């Protein structure tokens, strides 16, 4: 009657699964860039300790229960020769009390460190913490640094603000203040900390210290379902040295400026892949530094070239932080773009960019709905971490954002482009040449 002996297969399957599981956990750190087991912050180390307890107790309970079960199935299976009638046992109080108390004890061992960790991670953040305000939008992230102020073109005091790319100094506690402009979102960098929701009419807090994090980039995600492009609401977190952070934030405080475009090959590269290099201004030791005067309302913006750390060097970006999202079918002739012409187009309100976007330093660009584009040229990605920030993708994005990212609020701007939300073709819009000019301008906004 060997073919009847099926429980053994069940046992084997359970065992295989359990065995397959353990090396995967160990391999986590190398192969899995977004693993929650990366212990790069104080918070994640605490959580990792809890996970260790949970996984150990969980595995023990699993093995014990399944072993007893499988043993029972094997030992008490009906054999063809069986004539025995089972004894009708109705229960056993001692046994039942035992298997009530043992789980209860295990839970005590889990509950105590759990409660300690709750109170430790949710205590008040260190008073000298870096403050970062995170504001969720459908479907992008606004990051503000309220400790670093700037003047807007209208003379108001504002904070340093950026979008979809978060810079954190290593070794300093960062305290996030989180809320949402619309639906609920959730802020999560799995390698650094647990998640926290962004909720309208609520303010949430989250802090951690990226103390053992090397200078590198991490992926962040929105993890609360927030509508059509929930999957496309990602961001990058750059953990950098304190010096680099100071240099970056000082640069962010300056208004927009663009270097005169280098006559280097921004021209017909059909698809700019992840290898696209930023223009030379990011390289240290280039042109001499010439900080722009604050809030200079002078249209054509002054040419500035920066030195020092103004953005995480693209060469050092780990592969998993470079988006490889396939591009939808949008025709674009990719002409040569002139940044000065692009600046002028925006000034005149072409494409209606000024309705939603701010570029500090460009007095007509004061929109508040979309991401702040002041230093957009220094960002590594566009569209909330969906595409690499290069000429090609930026042009396609401007031409037909709604094909590039489902449901997006930004309208389809390219002339004669089909708008998938309105189900119409835009009769008025930007030509490829105009788009190329605007792209050249935006890309120069380092």
């Amino acid at each position, binding site marked *: 009657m060997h073919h009847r002996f099926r429980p053994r297969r069940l046992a084997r399957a359970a065992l295989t699964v359990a065995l397959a599981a353990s090396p995967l956990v160990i391999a986590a750190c190398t192969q899995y860039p977004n693993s*929650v087991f990366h212990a790069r912050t104080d918070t994640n180390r605490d959580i990792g300790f809890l996970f260790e307890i949970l996984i150990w107790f969980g595995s023990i309970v699993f093995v014990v229960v399944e072993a007893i079960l499988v043993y029972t199935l094997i030992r008490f299976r009906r054999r063809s020769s069986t004539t025995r009638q089972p004894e009708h046992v109705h229960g056993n109080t001692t046994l039942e009390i035992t298997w009530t108390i043992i789980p209860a004890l295990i839970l005590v061992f889990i509950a105590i460190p759990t409660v300690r960790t709750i109170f430790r991670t949710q205590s008040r953040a260190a008073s000298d913490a870096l403050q970062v305000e995170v504001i969720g939008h459908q479907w992008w992230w606004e990051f503000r640094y309220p400790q670093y102020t700037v003047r807007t073109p209208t003379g108001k005091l504002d904070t340093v603000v950026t979008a979809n790319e978060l810079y954190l100094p290593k070794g300093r506690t960062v305290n996030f203040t989180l809320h949402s402009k619309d639906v609920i979102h959730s802020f999560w960098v799995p390698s650094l900390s647990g998640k926290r929701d962004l909720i309208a009419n609520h303010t949430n807090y989250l802090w951690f210290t990226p103390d053992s994090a090397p200078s590198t980039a991490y992926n962040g995600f929105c993890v609360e379902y927030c509508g059509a492009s929930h999957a496309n609401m990602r961001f990058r977190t750059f953990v950098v040295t304190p010096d680099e952070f100071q240099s970056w934030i000082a640069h962010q405080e300056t208004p927009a400026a663009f270097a005169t475009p280098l006559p280097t090959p921004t021209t017909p590269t059909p698809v700019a892949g992840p290898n696209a290099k930023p223009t030379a201004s990011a390289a240290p030791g280039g042109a001499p530094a010439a900080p722009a005067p604050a809030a200079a309302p002078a249209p054509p913006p002054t040419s500035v070239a920066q030195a020092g750390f103004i953005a995480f060097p693209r060469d050092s970006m780990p592969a998993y932080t470079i988006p490889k999202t396939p591009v939808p079918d949008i025709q674009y002739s990719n002409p040569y773009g002139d940044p000065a012409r692009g600046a002028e187009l925006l000034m005149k309100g072409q494409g209606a960019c000024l309705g939603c976007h701010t570029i500090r330093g460009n007095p007509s660009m004061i929109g508040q709905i979309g991401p702040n584009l002041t230093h957009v040229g220094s960002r590594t990605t566009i569209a909330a971490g969906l595409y690499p920030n290069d000429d090609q993708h930026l042009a396609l994005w401007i031409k037909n954002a709604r094909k590039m990212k489902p449901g997006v609020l930004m309208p389809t701007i390219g002339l004669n482009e089909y708008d998938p939300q309105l189900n119409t073709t835009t009769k008025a819009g930007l030509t490829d040449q105009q788009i190329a000019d605007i792209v050249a301008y935006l890309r120069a906004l380092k």
Partner: protein
Amino acid sequence: MATTATAPVYAGAEEHAESGLWSWLTTVDHKRIAALYLGTSLFWFLAGGLEASIIRAQLAFPNGKVVSAEMFNELFTMHGTTMIFLVVMPLSAAFFNLLIPLQIGARDVAFPRLNAFSYWVYLFGSIFLNVSWFVGSAPDGGWFGYTPLTTFAYSHNLNIDFWVLGLQILGVSSLAAGFNFITTIINMRAPGMYFMRMPIFTWMAFIVQFLIVLAFPVITIALVFLQFDRFFGTNFYEIAQGGDPLLWQHLFWIFGHPEVYILILPAFGLVSEILPTFSRKPLFGYPVMVYSGMLIAFLGFGVWAHHMFAVGMGPIADTVFGVTTMLIAIPTGVKIFNWIFTMWGGVLRFTTAMKFAITLVALFTIGGISGVMHASPPADLQQTDTYFIVAHFHYVLVAGSMMGLFGGVYYYFPKFTGRMLDEKLGSWHFWLFFIGVNLTFFPMHFSGLYGMPRRIYRYDVGQGWETFNLMSSIGVIFQILGVAIGFWNFWRSRKVGAIAGNDPWGAPTLEWSIPSPPPDYNFARVPTVTSRYPLWDVKSPTLTSDVPHSRLGEERVDVDVGGHHTGKVGRAIGNPPGGPVGASTRAPGSPLTPVPPRRLPTARELGIPMPNPSIKPLFVALFMTLMFSSLIAIHKDKVPLAVALVITFAGAMTASLYGWLLTPLEDEH
């Protein structure tokens, strides 16, 4: 036993059509309603499974292009909504309907027409919800429907309207059934069927009905708020007017967590029936199983906010809800061990039903362990809204609820239809499904802990998730094959399966004492119950060894088997205890003893008054559904039309309801 002797001679009820479409539309027989629930919920299982299959096709590879973002969001919303409200709950209801009256020795439920009404509301509600696919606006807010995403400000189309109204309609069905079953169990138990002699499935069903009648009002209120926001311009959830998004979350999860136990306890009940039968041993620790079921249900109302650790409730609330959640692991663990020790020392027969039941015990444990992991709030912040959670609740609901329910189908199919399911096909169904479930859901633990968020329609390459997602998608193929074989088995065996007889499994409880399928009146003579295991007392009185099933000195047995009174010590009809099961009738040398076809006496001949069939519950349900549906016209800017339709259908519903209430349930006697 005195029932028949002293029964008044009733004027015989009219003979009712036993077949034909009309007989099904008008039926108030709990067994036929159970069959309707079974068929309908299995149909929606295919629909929900198709939705899941498309989801897995989309996610099999990075940056999948099978469906659009919008379509994906509709798919996962409808997958969840379908599987919870249109599959697991009504599939459980199929068993409640079939088994509660049979297990407590009753002739029907307390309110047979209300029972029919519950079914029709479920049917029309489920159709309404799915009509949304055909108008291109399937719900897309997730099964949890978080505001403000589902408020009109962020969802202008009809998608959420269908969801809100559909859930309201389905809630009516669940509540009506809940009150019906509670009344039935309290009032209609046969003589001697004390609460602590009730079969454990009926106990779990009883507990579930209390969960339903306590939890559904909460979601009803939450949905009424949302419905009023969307249709009538109120501001319960409108954030622009200062609405609090957390109001919805708290209301939803105060319903939503008990709902989890509404989904799992019926399966626990079925497993607690199956394991003793195929171990030939009583359930180990029956009282503890009852009390742990109650405790799970009670604690289930105090843990809702563990779904909300990420919303920032503060350390006190996190601690409280974390600890209460951990507490639930204790009664659940007790159940697992009691099941294992039910089998310990038994003579185990691995029928398909038994395999499904054992698998629930084995795999629910995994879902339970990951459940404890979520109960630790700081760790949960790294798990919630990732695929780890998806893995967890699919282990609970597929490897738990669905395994138990499939086991229930294999176990009770003979009672539904009078025929056995094919054990060979059943074995294929089980093994393919078992492999598929594990291959699909186990890797999700890893994709989750390696950072993959839930509800994303695509993910980028190089994130470390490709292998796990591909494994999950391949697992679905196994599940599809298993389910296809299983459904073929259900379809085929209903006509050509081996004749089951009263008691094909050698089971201990009352439902197996009567013919399969049972006559409309169930019990020719209402039995007097003296034990938790009356049939074992009849058939194998020697089994009880030193601990008797019944109280000492009490008359052992008094049940009808196959319409014939067995007397003090019964003779076994059907299979001899421990005999082989599931062999096909046509297999030569089959040891199964088919009961020779013989005419059962009708209710009239026995003088048993039975409720008359009625079409009115169907009308009330139909007009109620249409009344709710008419609200949709408001969002098509046809307010006068909407008002006219609502008033018309409300009038028609009220008229049908009066017609129902003014018609007596039974003929005069």
